[in-house]
């Protein structure tokens, strides 16, 4: 009770402090529960007429983000955005016609400051076949600019808006058929910085998810047209980051160093799917969910709606490759929703060790049978080991180690893994069989008249007793009639420099 009372008092104190602090930032209302004040929204977003000379906005292609505005006064910012219809790869060898804002999917990143007056020029390239327009979710006004920017091929439109609300906003084309314009890649992000700017980080990246609908199957080569039926049914062929499978992998992976903080501006263009955005191996220290003003801390996966965004930040603690996925995970593995962040720097084994143990784990199913193995071991030590004990122990070990390939009935898989049951190769030379287990076997072998050419890795984790038991089991099962193999036999073979693993033709 005492502890709880103390907590209540402390919360109240924090709330009072916050209240005192928020007088300068809007005199907006305060949430009586959380003690957090609001920023005043659009009503407090107008900082007066633009000051100074008009500024031409720096637009960047993904995954790059324009530099901070570093301004403390509202300005007039001119944005020149060109619409281009282009054919390029959506996956290796798969070509698709994208409709783009600025020649990329997603479109150019736009960065302004809250209170800025934005003079927006939308240019539709003369080679375009379609009219296009733009709806910026950061615009206050009906249609978000859509009606004001409706532009025929080879023409240009202009409209002006004041960026009253801070946040990270999606923009997209809203021309009929809107689903197709968005499905062809017509979306991007506009960041309206808060008046005080964003805190400094080491890297800022621009990542945007989209779903694509092609008439051909996933990775079917050639030029793939848009599939209207699949789009209407919301069954995408591809779900990708930054407009193509592999746009952010391999050499094109995002980069950072250990100790650096990475901020990602993440959007979801849709048109249809919601993203469960996740970075494998990282935890977002902060997520400004929905691209808004507040952040949540310590987030594994953040939901990004179609036509929505999020800002995520994390500090890289250990080197390696971090995989960005839509954690609706078949999209990652079967539709392309994978990107990478590669982090260089020194290992920190105290935080993450890497693999420390790599051992066979037989699980409970085998554990009950391990009684036979320990019995065999005891008998071997006592010098009373019987053939039957060996076979029983061998059976248990075989189930955990060998049956995946050679099958529990010893018949192998035709053409891939040779049989042990009634195997001329096995029965002709038990010593050679010991060698195969201990040192592995690769290259061509002929078993029962059939040729096999695959690789058996050395079973180095097995000790002499275990190998002896397994080989004895194999020599005396599935109709095989052979002798017992002893641990001493195994030891001898193991000691030999080279094993008789050559095929006997």
């Amino acid at each position, binding site marked *: 009770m005492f502890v709880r009372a103390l907590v209540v008092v402390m919360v109240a104190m924090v709330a009072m402090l916050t209240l005192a602090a928020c007088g300068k930032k809007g005199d907006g209302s305060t949430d009586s529960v959380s003690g957090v004040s609001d920023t005043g929204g659009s009503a407090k977003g107008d900082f007066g007429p633009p000051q100074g000379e008009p500024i031409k906005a720096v637009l960047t292609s993904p995954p790059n983000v324009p530099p901070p505005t570093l301004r403390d006064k509202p300005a007039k910012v001119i944005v020149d955005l060109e619409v*281009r*219809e*282009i*054919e390029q790869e959506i996956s290796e060898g798969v070509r698709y*016609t994208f409709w783009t804002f600025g020649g990329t999917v997603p479109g150019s990143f736009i960065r302004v400051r809250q209170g800025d007056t934005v003079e927006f020029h939308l240019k539709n390239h*003369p*080679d*375009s*076949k*379609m*009219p296009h*327009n733009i*709806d910026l979710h950061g615009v206050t006004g*009906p*249609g978000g600019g*859509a*009606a004001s920017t*409706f*532009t*025929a*091929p*080879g*023409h240009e439109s202009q409209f002006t808006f004041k960026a009253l609300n801070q946040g990270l906003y999606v923009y997209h084309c*809203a*021309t*009929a*058929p*809107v689903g*197709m*314009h968005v499905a*062809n890649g017509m979306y991007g992000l506009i960041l309206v910085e808060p008046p005080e700017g964003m805190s400094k980080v080491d890297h800022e990246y621009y990542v945007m998810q989209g779903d694509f609908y092609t*008439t051909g199957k996933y990775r079917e080569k050639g030029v793939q*047209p*848009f*599939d*209207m*039926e699949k789009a*209407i049914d919301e069954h995408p062929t591809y779900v990708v980051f930054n407009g193509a499978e592999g746009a952010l992998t391999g050499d094109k992976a995002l980069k950072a160093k250990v100790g650096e903080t990475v901020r990602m501006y993440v959007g979801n263009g849709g048109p249809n799917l919601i993203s469960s955005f996740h970075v494998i191996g990282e935890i977002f220290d902060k997520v400004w969910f929905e691209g808004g003003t507040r952040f949540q801390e310590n987030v594994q996966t953040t939901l990004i709606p179609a036509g929505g965004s999020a800002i995520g930040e994390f500090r890289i603690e250990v080197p390696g490759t971090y995989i960005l996925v839509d954690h609706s995970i078949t999209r990652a593995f079967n539709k392309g929703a994978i990107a990478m962040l590669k982090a260089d720097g020194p290992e920190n084994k105290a935080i993450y060790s890497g693999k420390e143990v790599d051992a066979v784990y037989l699980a409970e199913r085998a554990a009950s049978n391990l009684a036979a193995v320990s019995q065999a071991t005891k008998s071997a030590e006592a010098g009373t080991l019987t053939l039957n004990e060996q076979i029983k122990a061998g059976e248990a070990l075989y189930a955990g180690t060998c049956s995946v390939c050679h099958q529990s009935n010893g018949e192998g898989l035709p053409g891939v893994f040779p049989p042990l049951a009634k195997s001329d190769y096995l029965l002709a030379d038990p010593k050679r069989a010991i060698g195969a287990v201990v040192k592995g076997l690769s290259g061509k072998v002929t078993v029962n008249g059939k040729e096999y050419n695959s690789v058996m890795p050395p079973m180095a984790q097995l000790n002499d007793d275990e190998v002896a038991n397994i080989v004895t089991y194999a020599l005396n099962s599935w109709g095989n009639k052979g002798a017992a193999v002893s641990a001493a036999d195994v030891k001898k073979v193991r000691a030999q420099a080279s094993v008789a693993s050559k095929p006997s033709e």
Partner: protein
Amino acid sequence: MRAPLAAMLHLSLLCAGLLLSALACAAQYVKYVTIPAASFRTALPPDGKSASAATSTFRMRAMPVTNGEYQSFVRQHVEWRRGQVAALFADAGYLRPWAANDAFGPHLHAGQPVTHVSWFAADAYCRSEGARLPTWYEWELVAAADEQRKDARDDARWRERMLRWYSRPSTEKLAAVGKTAKNLYGVYDMHGLVWEWVEDFTGIMVSTDNREQGDPDLRKFCGAGAIAVGDRENYAVQMRLALLSSLQAAYTTGNLGFRCVRETREKAS
């Protein structure tokens, strides 16, 4: 045989009537085909809901107007030459790819459809041929047909074929007219070659914001107000309507041509 004969007869009468040079008329035979009166499902229902569109019998050019034909036109009509056309009637892109103000030049072909022409220019051309631009309904009626059917629009495969052209940028050289399959009426190139002006494009009024439905701001559009697109699953027709509604009468674009229609006194068969 009847339709071409009628067309030729009409053309010769027209030439005599307008006192045009007999030589010019003889040099060009323009094929028009008869489209019987019809009532059909339209993407733009006249009542904004589901009413059918009705068209009287008319004759339509079998192929879009070509560079060669348009060159003859501007040679006879100086006021429609590039450089002389009033800015009110054609924007700066008018006949831009042409080598000279009155010649399309060596890098274009006489048989390609003329593009970079404004609505005013297209309208003037059709008048010179004793014709006019088709209305949207006339155009839509003929465009609904494929090789065998009057109305192929519900065929998913036909739609997919349409979309392939509609969804690609116009960066490739235009083919000559008359190379696509002839449709049931004997008309070529309704799809797959160029966009085409229609007479009443200002009345098409697809909302510039595709998501507005039911209560559009009437002032934003010419004519009777915005009409919701009736054929929501037909993206090809939506794209054409969007393109047409993005235009103004003086606009020219690289993929926009036209064809003409003539009214006829023939009774519907």
